C-alpha cells in the first residue's frame, strides 16, 4: 500500500518537473492533436517541408510568397503533433517492500509510486493519455489509459491500493498487457529490474515496437552495503536465506553488483531500452532528469 502522502508531489518537485517532457524516441502516428512528433504531415505549427501543388490541395495551403518568387505553386506542410499513450508498469513484487535501514518507512514501493506520480504529472502536462500496469504476485492490475485529472486520480487510487506481494507472475497472466499496450506506446517500467522475466518482457515489448524505458529503483543499501555485523539476509521473493558477515562479504558483493548492473545496462541498450537508475535516497525526479533532461530525447 503506497502512502498517500508520497503520491502528492511537493510544489518544488512539481516545479522541477515542469522543465521535463516525456518524449518517445520514435515518432508516433496517432490521430489527434498532441505534443509529440508524428509521422503524419499536414497542418500544424512545426514546418516540415514544401511539396509541389497537387490538385485537390487546399488553396490556403499554397505558399504565396514562394509562388511570387518562383512562379510555381508549393504547398507548405507542417508536422502534425499527436498525443501518445504512456503506460506505467510497476513491479510490485515482494522485493518492492524492501527499505533502507536508515529510512525504514520509505520502501522501494513508495519510491516507485512517487516516480509513477511524477510520470503521471508529466503526461498530464503534455495532454497525453496514461494508464497503469501494476504487476505483483497476484497478477496484473490495470488502469486503462485515459486523459485528465480524473484519470490521474484513478491511477493514484490504484497505486494507493498496491501491495507488494509474491514473485513475478507467469507470462500467461500478463497476456492482457500485450492486448493493451499498442505499438508506439511509451511504456515506462518502474522496478528493481532484478527479475529476469521482467527484463525478458521488456525486451519483447521493445522488439515489438513499443517504446520501452526502464527506471531501475534501487535502495541505498544495495548500493553501499552498509552492514558490518553478521546478518541473516533473506530474499523476499524466494525466501532464500543467507547468513553472512557484512564486512567480510561487502567488497565481493559491491563488485558483483556493479558488474551485474553494467551487464544489465549493456543488455537493455542492445535491446533498445533506455534506462536510468533511481536511488531510494535521491529525489525521484533525478532519474527522470537523466532520461528526459536537457530538453529532449534520451
Amino acid at each position, binding site marked *: 500500500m503506497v502512502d498517500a502522502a508520497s503520491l502528492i508531489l511537493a510544489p518544488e518537485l512539481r516545479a522541477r518537473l515542469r522543465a521535463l517532457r516525456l518524449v518517445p524516441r520514435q515518432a508516433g502516428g496517432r490521430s489527434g492533436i498532441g505534443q509529440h512528433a508524428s509521422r503524419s504531415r499536414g497542418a500544424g505549427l512545426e514546418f516540415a517541408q514544401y511539396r509541389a501543388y497537387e490538385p485537390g490541395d487546399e488553396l490556403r495551403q499554397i505558399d504565396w510568397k514562394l509562388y511570387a518568387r518562383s512562379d510555381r505553386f508549393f504547398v507548405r506542410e507542417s508536422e502534425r503533433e499527436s498525443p501518445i499513450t504512456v503506460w506505467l508498469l510497476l513491479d510490485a513484487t515482494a522485493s518492492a517492500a524492501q527499505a533502507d535501514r536508515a529510512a525504514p518507512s520509505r520502501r522501494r514501493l513508495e519510491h516507485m509510486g512517487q516516480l509513477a506520480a511524477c510520470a503521471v504529472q508529466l503526461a498530464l502536462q503534455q495532454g497525453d493519455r496514461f494508464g497503469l500496469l501494476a504487476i505483483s504476485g497476484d497478477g496484473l492490475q490495470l488502469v486503462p489509459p485515459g486523459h485528465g485529472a480524473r484519470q490521474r486520480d484513478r491511477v493514484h487510487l490504484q497505486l494507493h491500493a498496491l501491495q507488494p506481494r509474491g514473485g513475478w507472475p507467469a507470462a500467461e497472466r500478463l497476456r492482457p498487457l500485450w492486448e493493451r499496450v499498442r505499438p508506439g506506446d511509451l511504456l515506462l517500467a518502474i522496478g*528493481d529490474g532484478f527479475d529476469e522475466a521482467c527484463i525478458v518482457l521488456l525486451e519483447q515489448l521493445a522488439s515489438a515496437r513499443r517504446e520501452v524505458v526502464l527506471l531501475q529503483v534501487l535502495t541505498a543499501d544495495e548500493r553501499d552495503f552498509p552492514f558490518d555485523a553478521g546478518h541473516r539476509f533473506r530474499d*523476499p521473493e524466494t525466501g532464500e536465506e543467507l*547468513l553472512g558477515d557484512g564486512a567480510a562479504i561487502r567488497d565481493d*558483493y559491491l563488485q558483483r553488483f556493479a558488474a551485474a548492473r553494467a551487464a544489465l545496462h549493456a543488455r537493455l541498450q542492445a535491446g533498445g531500452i533506455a534506462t536510468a537508475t533511481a536511488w531510494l535516497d535521491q529525489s525521484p525526479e533525478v532519474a527522470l532528469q537523466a532520461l528526459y533532461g536537457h530538453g529532449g530525447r534520451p
Partner: protein
Amino acid sequence: MSLLFPLGLLALLSALLPLLIHLARRHPYTPLDFAALRWLRARVRPRQRIRFDDWPLLLVRLLLLAALAVLLAHPALTGPAPAAPAWTVVAPGLDAKALRGKAGTTPWHWLAPAFPEIDQPVPVQTATLPSLLRELDARLPAGTALVVHVPDPLSDLDGQRLQLSRTVRWVPHAVPLRAATPAATAAPVLRLHDGATAPVQRWAAAVQRAWHGQVMPPALAGGALPGAGEIGVWSGGKPLPGNWQRWLQQGGQVLVETPAPATAPVLLRAEGGEPLLQQQRVGRGRLLHLVGGLDVAVNPALQRPDLPRQLRIALQGEPRARVGDARDHAPTKASRPAARAEPRDIGVWLAVLVLLLFGVERWLASAPQRRRRA
C-alpha cells in the same frame, strides 16, 4: 591487609558466570530483506567476535561479585592503625578536671581498671599504678603518645622500676602524703606463757619494745592461748601443752628453745654463721626454734644490738619501699615485644560498597535506553 578466611576468595570464580552468560549469548540475526541476494556470496560465516555490549553494566556486575567474594574472605587491616590521639591518664587522687582545664579536646582517662573517662566519678582503686600502666601500655596501639599525671610522692610502687614499650610523658604533681599509710605491716607481738623465767621475760620485753616502742602485754595466765597474729613464746625444755599444740596446728606461731631437726630451714644466722633461728612447719602453723636458748646470759647471740630488726625481717620479710619520689619512678623505655595490633574488620565498609555497587547495577540495568532496546 590480610584475609581471615582466604578460601572465601574462591567465590571470585563466580565472576565467570556473568562473563560466560555475556559471551555465550546467541547473537540473534534478525532476518533482513535483501532483494539483491543473488549477488551475495557468503563463503565467510559471520565471525563470532568477542564483543562486549553494555560493558559498563558487565563491569559493575563483575565488581559486585568480586566485592561479595572479598566480603566472604573477611578482609581485615593489620597494619599499624592510624595514629590514635594521645592518651592522657590521671592517677586517681589528682583533680583531673582541674588539670585538664579548658585545653585539650582529647578525652582524659582515669588510671584505673577499664580506664574510664574523667567525666565519670573517681573509680575505686583495685590495682596498683604500675600494673595499670603496664596494662595500658599493652593495650594502646604502638605509636600512641601517652601522658601520665601522677601524684608526687608515689605510693603503691612495686619492687621494679616501670618499663614500658613507649616513651611516656611523666607529669608528677606534688600532693601532700596522706596519713601514714597502714601499708607497713604491723610488727608481731610476742606473748609469753605463764611461768617464763625472768631473763626470758626481760629479753622478750626488750625485743617487743624495740619493735613497737610499747610495753609488752602481760604473760598468758594459766593455760590461755596467745591471740591471732601473736607469737607465743614457750621457754624451757618442756614440751608444748595440748591446747598450744592444737593452736599451732591451726596456724599459730610458737617460739621455742628446743633444738630443731637438722633439716629445718634457717631463718637467721648468728654472726659466726651458725644457725640462730630455724623454722619448722607444723600443720598450718610454724614452730620457730631459737638455737641456743632464750636466756641472754647463756646465748650471747641474743645480745646483738640489731637483733630485733634482724629478727623481725626474718619473721616477716624485708619491708618494701612502697612510697617514692615520682620523678625517680618515671617509666623507662624498654624494647618490649610490640603489642600485636588487632586486625581491624572492614566488612562493614565492604558491605556498604556492595550495596552501592548493587544500586549502580540496578540503575544501569534498568536504564531507559536499555529497556528500549529490550
